[in-house]
């Protein structure tokens, strides 16, 4: 994601000359973080796949106007966030289909079955807590903690002031902390701060 900027500029220049191989290279460079962002926000594999498709189709149509002197990652994420927002508005729910592929993901080698169950439960509790957040806070959490974007990059992606991003992160963390503290499944096992 945070690769040398010249690489993106060169790819964009080649794409503008009609080189589809360069566009394929751009796709392979960014497909994973974009897909993971869409998946973390929507929780739906089909939706994430559709968003990824739409993102690159839109990006191709708009590549003539993009400023290629900077990294394309925030710009592409901006498209993904907008498409995810549309999807969330259409499907105002947190789909349970996520559970299936979480199970598949954790099916790998783990130290002990006991540990696996604990990890799965904790992960599920946190995921459910994140799912209770509104779209803007959830997407901000995903961009900040999963993709490692800076506050100014997230501000660009949302087209809002940096202060708004800080505020969203603060209130999202506060809400999550409160929710996890109240969760009965974690009673007596974890203490998340005192604030």
């Amino acid at each position, binding site marked *: 994601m945070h690769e040398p900027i010249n690489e993106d500029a060169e790819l964009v220049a080649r*794409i*503008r*000359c*009609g080189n*589809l191989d360069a*566009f*394929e290279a751009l*796709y*392979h460079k960014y*497909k*994973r973080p974009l*897909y*993971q962002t869409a*998946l*973390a926000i929507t929780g739906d594999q089909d939706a*994430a*796949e559709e968003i*990824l*498709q739409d993102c*690159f*189709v839109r990006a*191709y*149509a*708009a*590549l*003539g*106007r993009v400023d290629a002197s900077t990294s394309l990652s925030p710009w592409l994420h901006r498209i993904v966030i907008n498409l995810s927002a549309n999807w969330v508005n259409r499907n105002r729910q947190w789909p349970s289909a*996520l559970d299936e*592929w*979480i199970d598949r*993901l*954790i099916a790998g080698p783990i130290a002990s079955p006991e540990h696996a169950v604990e*990890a799965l439960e*904790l*992960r599920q509790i*946190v*995921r459910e807590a*994140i799912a209770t957040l509104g779209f803007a806070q959830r997407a901000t*959490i*995903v961009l*900040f*903690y*999963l993709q*490692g*974007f*800076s*506050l100014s990059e997230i501000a660009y992606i949302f087209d809002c002031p940096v202060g708004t991003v*800080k505020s969203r*992160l*603060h209130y999202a*963390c506060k809400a*999550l*902390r409160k929710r*996890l503290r109240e969760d009965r499944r974690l009673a007596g096992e974890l203490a*998340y*701060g005192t604030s």
Partner: protein
Amino acid sequence: MERLSTKQSRSTISAEDEIGELIRWSLEETVGEAEPPADVWHKIIARIKEMDAPAFSPRRRRRVALPLASFVQAVVISVLLLAFGLEVNRNMPLSQKAYQASATPTISKVSAPAESDQDMLRGYMLLQKEKEPLPRNHRGERIVEIQKFR
């Protein structure tokens, strides 16, 4: 862990508390290994090939670069300028003096031609009457009518 430390260094707010770590761990464990299906690229390229060529395509550049295009543009611009000029002349704003003169209400007298035409008609009718043979009575005497003209 290396990835984690890179993210930490990019953070500008205090996110290294327990809840931040927990969120990061949860998200990475949940979607960190997820990959899009292999056929997504083929679907994207199929959709792109169906689309109209975007603005940066060389084909469209060539079309714009035809010499005929500049000629047509010049003709259209000339016509527009001419039309604009004529319209400006027609609607040229009046000077203050001319505007006052045109804006002052005036009483115009209807010109005489209508009356003179009427007079000519009357004269013509009198002439005709004189030429007509006067009516006579049974003894052959002329009946003279006295006409009064106002």
